[in-house]
């Protein structure tokens, strides 16, 4: 998704420079929500103000709305078809493997301090086995970072 957005916003239309694009991408990761949508919102805001942001956001979600509504309507009517049931039994295995790889990739790129390993394990155990709400985990770990991890990024960089 991101290389495509960069091609549109930097190379084809010169809405933002390559350096601004990198900044926007970093900032999009530090804002809640879907990163690709945040990136589009930022580019729109920078290029044409509030309405630029609004239309960039609506633009980037519209294809998904159309395609997924069609697919969902299709699957809802075929959900009990035996072929679909068998296919999804296989697909679930592939999804589990793909997700496991995403988690590995995130751990390699996102975990830098020992305290973060502890947070990751604690978040996994409390949500998967103790059925604690993910809302609480996000609030607690954000507060923990705010109060206890200040300056840790600098240590990691050294």
């Amino acid at each position: 998704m991101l290389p495509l957005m960069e091609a549109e916003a930097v190379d084809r239309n010169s809405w933002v420079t390559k350096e601004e694009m990198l900044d926007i991408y970093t900032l999009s990761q530090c804002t809640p929500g879907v990163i690709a949508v945040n990136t589009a919102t930022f580019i729109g805001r920078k290029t044409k103000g509030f309405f630029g942001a609004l239309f960039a956001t609506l633009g980037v979600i519209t294809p998904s709305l159309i395609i997924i509504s069609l697919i969902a309507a299709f699957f809802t009517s075929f959900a009990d078809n035996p072929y679909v049931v068998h296919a999804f039994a296989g697909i679930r295995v592939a999804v589990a493997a793909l997700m496991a790889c995403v988690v590995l990739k995130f751990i390699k790129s996102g975990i830098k301090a020992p305290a973060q390993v502890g947070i990751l394990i604690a978040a996994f155990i409390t949500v998967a086995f103790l059925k604690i709400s993910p809302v609480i985990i996000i609030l607690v770990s954000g507060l923990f970072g705010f109060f206890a991890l200040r300056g840790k990024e600098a240590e990691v960089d050294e």
Partner: protein
Amino acid sequence: MNKLLLMCLNFFKTGLLAVGGGLATVPFLKEIAEKHPDWYTVEDLTNMIAVGESTPGPIGINIATYAGFQTAGVIGGILATLFMVAPSFIVIMIIYKAWQKFKDNDKVQATFLGLRPAGIGLILSVCYTVFVSAVIPGGTFNPYLLLMFLVFFAALQIPKIKDIHPIFYILLAAAIGIIFKL
């Protein structure tokens, strides 16, 4: 409370708290499934992830549209998606002017040092749920499915193979499912 309104609030909350990209929305969508199994089930959510991975567009948006559609049809899909992106939109409009300061602020950076691993841990917990529902379907352990998982996972570690688009793996898995009547 009106079902549509309740759904919109739930997706707004998801958009506000999901940190770390599209898949980070899934733990919150799973919580919705557990609270409101008449909207969609945890098993439906696995199917949504599969469809979201194999269609163009951001996966978080694809899954939100699908979950909203399962809950309340076409209108549900549109509203779920709009309410999920609304918090990020509002946050970006507020911080935009101060964005350089925001990015380099050490309190913000420290908060994200805590949030990021939590987000990964939450995705790992969903990955675990999907793994269990994939390998122990309907409560019965199937060693062939475990073998299939291990083969897929191993293949995804091989340099040139891992960069193939996820839709390839999903179609291959669907074909295996149909051929072997999994």
